[in-house]
């Protein structure tokens, strides 16, 4: 997956969680939580979807790496390079 593919994947998962999520003004390097009204349960949903769709196991200690869209892409890029 390219960085753009990963970005689209994350946004698609967030859209499933909250169909009203507005990505127009989303700043990639700012926390998703503040911009999209996501709570800790929503981040758990993202982790579960990544496991379901791509068999990715993300340890609890790595959850903070999913904070912003940029950090998600940075973290997932090596894990999804062969997908």
């Amino acid at each position: 997956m390219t960085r753009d593919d990963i970005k689209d994947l994350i946004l698609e998962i967030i859209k499933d969680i909250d169909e009203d999520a507005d990505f127009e003004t989303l700043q990639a390097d700012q926390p998703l939580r503040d911009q999209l009204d996501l709570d800790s349960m929503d981040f758990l949903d993202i982790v579960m979807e990544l496991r379901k769709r791509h068999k990715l196991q993300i340890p609890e200690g790595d959850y903070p790496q999913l904070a912003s869209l940029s950090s998600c892409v940075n973290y997932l890029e090596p894990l999804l390079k062969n997908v």
Partner: protein
Amino acid sequence: MPLSLDKAADHYDVIVIGSGLGGLTTAKRLAYCGHKVLLLEFHHQLGGLATWFKRKGHIFDISLHGFPYGMVKTCKKYWTKEITESIVQLKNIVFDNPQFSLKTTFDRLDFTNLLTQKFKISQAIIDSFFATVAGMNFYDDQTMTTRELFEKFFPGRSDVHRLLMEPITYANGSTLDDPAITYGIVFSNFMNKGVFTFEGGTDRLIEMMTYDLEKNGVTICTRAKVERIIVEKGKVRGVEVNGRVISAPAVVSNSGITNTIFDLAPRDAFSDEFLAKADAIRVNNSSCQVYIGLKQECEIEDKGDLLFTSTAPVFDSSELLDMHTRSKTFSVYYPKTRPGHDRYTIVASMNSHYDNWNSLTPAAYETEKQALIDRTLVDLNRYFPGVNDKIDWLEAATPKTFNRYTLHTRGTSFGTKFEGLAVSRSLFKEVAGLFHVGSVGIIMSGWLGAINYGVIVANDVDAYIRSA
């Protein structure tokens, strides 16, 4: 429709023991993730403490008293659109005690108005209090108690403490001496938008959940009592249920955490260190309830949906737990609560200690139960004068009743105190493949807490099964 146990297969990916809202949600999430799930319930009805019973044309809800708005998002994400659309607000929350009487929508805006105008607290203090409780996380410092939190913001104001604490004591069994975070997290959830209920009642919710579970391929068996969890060489192998062994690499117990460790799993499966932590778990208090049904042709005026009443001069956590407490809530179910059903029912709830009731002789138990009903009627007549003539069903439940139907240690209706959460969360690190979901730590209780915890645990189980 749930099946009888002889219809179950011999092997599953995961077995869920118990069908409280946590167990139901874990089962649903794991089936959604593609696993083959067996759900076992000892009772003939699903729901755990989210339950109901029918008498003489009445349907009595046991634990449908009001939950936070967060249920909307949670049900939308983890259950169905139909379930979400049945969540409606309870707008009339009443407080009546010797210190104050008021009606509120129980949200931040209304509470701010009440605190400034009626209780004369400054806006700055209120804002600071709300900001403090809203910022609380379960992993935060636990040394501050709720009593200390209240004294910090509203020193000496026992009336304000009562307004803030009384509903939460009924919601999660916490006291002024529990960690402030167990108060703040739950209080903030309610203050978000107020108190909500499920239109159509608990029976309709559980029916909708059952349908959804079956649609997702979960095998559900009722009257199936798990006798033991089988552990071999540090790993879960399955369960023995009604004398039959069913194997699975993962077992999720929605039985109480203390029941799971001390009654279901073999003791030698745990380290001494872990058992010491489990031994130290304090289960929360139980409840007493009085169920009141009105005759078919009788109506009562709308005096509010949820009434927090007390004749005790000041709020005191131990007074609320006294066997003869003068404090109780009335949940009033008008016909609007159950469209198509024209009956009025009222459920009075009190917090209570199991030991006080369990130590009575059979004769004394019956006498105390009748006295409980009599006291409740005296209190109820203050709000609905002459209601006695309209009643055609009266029945009481005590902590012993809660114990009989849920099997929970000492009939706890709010799970465990705070330390239970860490033990529940670390169970699968102690015995591979064994998980717990259910009311623990005060914060993971109530309908919303139980469902969300079900999702959290399903994530752990899914990760475990996929890595095995």
